[in-house]
């Protein structure tokens, strides 16, 4: 206790939040708003420096080596940065002992810094390990997370859904559970509640992660269901790992007492997420309509264009088709990844060239980026490429000529195709013209495939939520026609979803209209009997001036109707607030309590 921590951070609010959290944990906090001030503060050396990488007068990378000289050898310097792609090697070279990614809740910082201060092992492994059960319905995501966590020193087991997670929790006995939120059936919130309700799992901390549930109210709900944290998913998992470490050290969080409230809140947020997915779909559908116009262009490539292939394999097929047409069976396709780097997707007909030569394009990967930026096919050798570069590339690949063609459509970039030939033939202007003529349609097909893929993914997500919901969901347009119904509507109303779509809503559900809010109504089942249903309607602006309505129908049943009657005795039916009688009762109670404690 009482260790001295120097915070170097130019944002005064961040600085203050960090200072408060650290002081509360018993640290002595020194502060500096820029590099110069940091160098002055460090004259009396702190035990740890937390260093923002972007400072007004110098960069953290410049400052760190200077601080390193003045600090004790075992005093850690920890980078604090909002960039997720900082090169860890570069940071280590500058004298940093580790990196913490912003944004981070200040309270989570304390256990992390303690670990830096604690052990000599901190240099090798930031994460002390532990058994993690990872839950995600997306197999690729699951594999990736398992891989990264294993590499970071955790022992990992995986589950594809909430039910499997509960079984695995028994066999694997994890120290912590990491779960995705948006999963069909039992979602992350449900799983967390289930774990907290079971005495044998109650003490296992849960970290939730999502790229959809990212609002403050979602975070609040996560805390209510007993999760340790809800972190936004980023590709490098840095936040996730920090949260896992913090969860492993923090005291266990129970789920909130008021369970009915938690369930209601959960349901509300699922419904909201659903709306968001619907909006998302509509935007994508619009984007797709535009792209469809381009389809007439693509007759020559129709055999490749099916909406059911994923983008990488489509690009692979393109390459094969293209190479076949050109008669030169050597080359590679590069795909532009989300991190902005080109990666080899497929290489063909050039078995004598080792894979890693393609990976950095014979030491000149920047040339491919230049071609992609330029948007024009380029031959090697040609006046467009410096002679020394051409010579080196051709010598290393033992090829006579190459043709590099960018795959892009407007601002949208997909990657690069490279053709390689044993002789000098590809530098011929005819080939460049051919490449120019063919690249356009290929890029358009890719754009189309990509928008199909996005649309399908978003659709599946929305479908997964709606179909797993016990509640029935209807969407109506401004004219009162049903545009969507989920599977649960049949159980509730006796009408199958497909019989409802495109029908006027009033024919089946006369009580549904454009009034938003929640109300209790009587529904006549297709079988003739009447049931009590709670309807929640929300409006959504599909495009400017055009509204659609989402109605969630919840079978409240006989017991619920009795509950509703009881509720009416204490609540105002119009506004659902307490009525006068109930309020006066409450007021009297409060005053009595207050007087009693006086």
């Amino acid at each position, binding site marked *: 206790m009482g260790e001295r921590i120097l915070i170097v951070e130019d944002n005064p609010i961040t600085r203050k939040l960090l200072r408060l959290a650290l002081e509360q944990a018993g640290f002595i906090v020194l502060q500096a708003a820029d590099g110069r001030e940091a160098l002055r503060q460090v004259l009396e050396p702190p035990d740890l420096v937390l260093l923002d990488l972007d400072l007004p007068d110098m960069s953290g990378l410049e400052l760190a080596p200077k601080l390193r000289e003045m600090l004790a050898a075992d005093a850690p310097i920890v980078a604090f940065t909002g960039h997720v792609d900082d090169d860890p090697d570069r940071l280590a070279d500058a004298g940093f002992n580790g990196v913490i990614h912003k944004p981070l809740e200040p309270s989570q910082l304390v256990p992390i810094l303690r670990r830096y201060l604690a052990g000599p092992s901190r240099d090798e492994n930031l994460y002390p390990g532990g058994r993690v059960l990872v839950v995600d319905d997306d197999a690729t995501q699951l594999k990736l997370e398992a891989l990264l966590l294993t590499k970071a020193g955790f022992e990992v087991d995986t589950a594809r859904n909430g039910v499997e997670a509960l079984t695995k929790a028994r066999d694997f006995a994890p120290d912590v559970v990491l779960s995705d939120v948006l999963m069909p059936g039992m979602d992350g919130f449900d799983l967390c509640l289930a774990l907290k309700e079971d005495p044998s799992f109650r003490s296992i901390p849960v970290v939730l992660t999502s790229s959809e549930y990212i609002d403050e109210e979602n975070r609040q709900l996560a805390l209510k269901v007993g999760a340790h944290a809800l972190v936004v998913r980023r590709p490098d998992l840095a936040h996730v790992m920090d949260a896992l470490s913090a969860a492993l050290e923090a005291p266990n969080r129970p789920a909130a007492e008021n369970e009915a409230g938690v369930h209601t809140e959960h349901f509300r947020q699922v419904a909201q997420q659903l709306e968001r997915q619907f909006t998302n779909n509509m935007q994508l559908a619009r984007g797709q309509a535009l792209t469809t116009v381009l389809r007439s262009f693509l007759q020559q490539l129709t055999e490749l264009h099916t909406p059911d292939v994923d983008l990488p394999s489509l690009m692979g097929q393109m390459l094969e088709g293209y190479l076949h047409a050109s008669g030169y069976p050597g080359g590679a396709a590069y795909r532009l990844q989300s991190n902005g780097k080109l990666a080899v997707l497929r290489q063909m007909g050039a078995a004598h060239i080792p894979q890693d030569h393609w990976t950095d394009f014979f030491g000149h990967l920047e040339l491919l980026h230049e071609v992609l930026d330029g948007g024009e096919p380029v031959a090697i050798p040609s006046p467009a490429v410096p002679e020394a570069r051409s010579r080196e590339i051709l010598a290393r690949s033992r090829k006579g000529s190459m043709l590099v063609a960018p795959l892009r459509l407007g601002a949208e970039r997909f990657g690069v195709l490279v053709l390689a030939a044993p002789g000098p033939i590809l530098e011929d202007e005819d080939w460049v013209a051919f490449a120019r003529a063919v690249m356009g349609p290929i890029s358009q097909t890719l754009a189309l495939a990509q928008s199909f893929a996005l649309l399908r993914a978003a659709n599946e997500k929305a479908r997964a939520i709606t179909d797993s919901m016990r509640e029935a969901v209807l969407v109506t347009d401004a004219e009162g026609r049903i545009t969507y119904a989920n599977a649960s509507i049949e159980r509730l109303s006796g009408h199958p979803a497909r019989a409802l779509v495109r029908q006027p809503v009033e024919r089946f559900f006369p009580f549904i209209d454009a009034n938003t809010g929640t109300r209790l109504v009587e529904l006549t089942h297709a079988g003739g009997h009447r049931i009590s249903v709670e309807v929640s309607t929300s409006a959504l602006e599909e495009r400017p001036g055009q509204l659609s309505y989402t109605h969630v129908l919840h079978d409240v049943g006989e017991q619920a109707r009795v509950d509703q009657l009881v509720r009416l005795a204490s609540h105002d039916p*119009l506004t659902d607030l307490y009525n*006068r009688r109930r309020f006066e009762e409450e007021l009297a109670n*409060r005053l009595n309590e*207050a007087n009693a404690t006086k």
Partner: protein
Amino acid sequence: VIGALLMLDLDHFKPINDRLGHAAGDLALKSFAAFISANSRTTDVTARLGGAEFVVLAPYADAAQAQAFAAKLVERLAKEIVQYNGERLPLQTSIGIALYGEHAQTPDALMQCADRALYDAKQAGRGCFRLYRESTPPIRARKA
């Protein structure tokens, strides 16, 4: 001070009801109720007394906090947009504040103090709030 009682009345409710009909009136009341709930703390107790009259019981609020709360409600309500058949409903509130433990000790007396303060706010031109003043005695006969 142990807490505050805010009594709120939706101004110009009757004209809305008379001119646009009961559906519009109901919408105004429902919107006002939702507005009050959304702007209250979870520890506050909210209720509709009847008509266009609502209350918020804010435990542990002192005079300054209660007035800041009331000011926030008056100000934010003016920015709420609630439409009925394409027409914006004019939502505005007057608020009376009484402090329990300071202005009154019993529930009835506290309600009367808040009611009196609300009356003052209405007299002052509506769309504002008033804290109960000791010098003016509570009106007993105003409410049935």
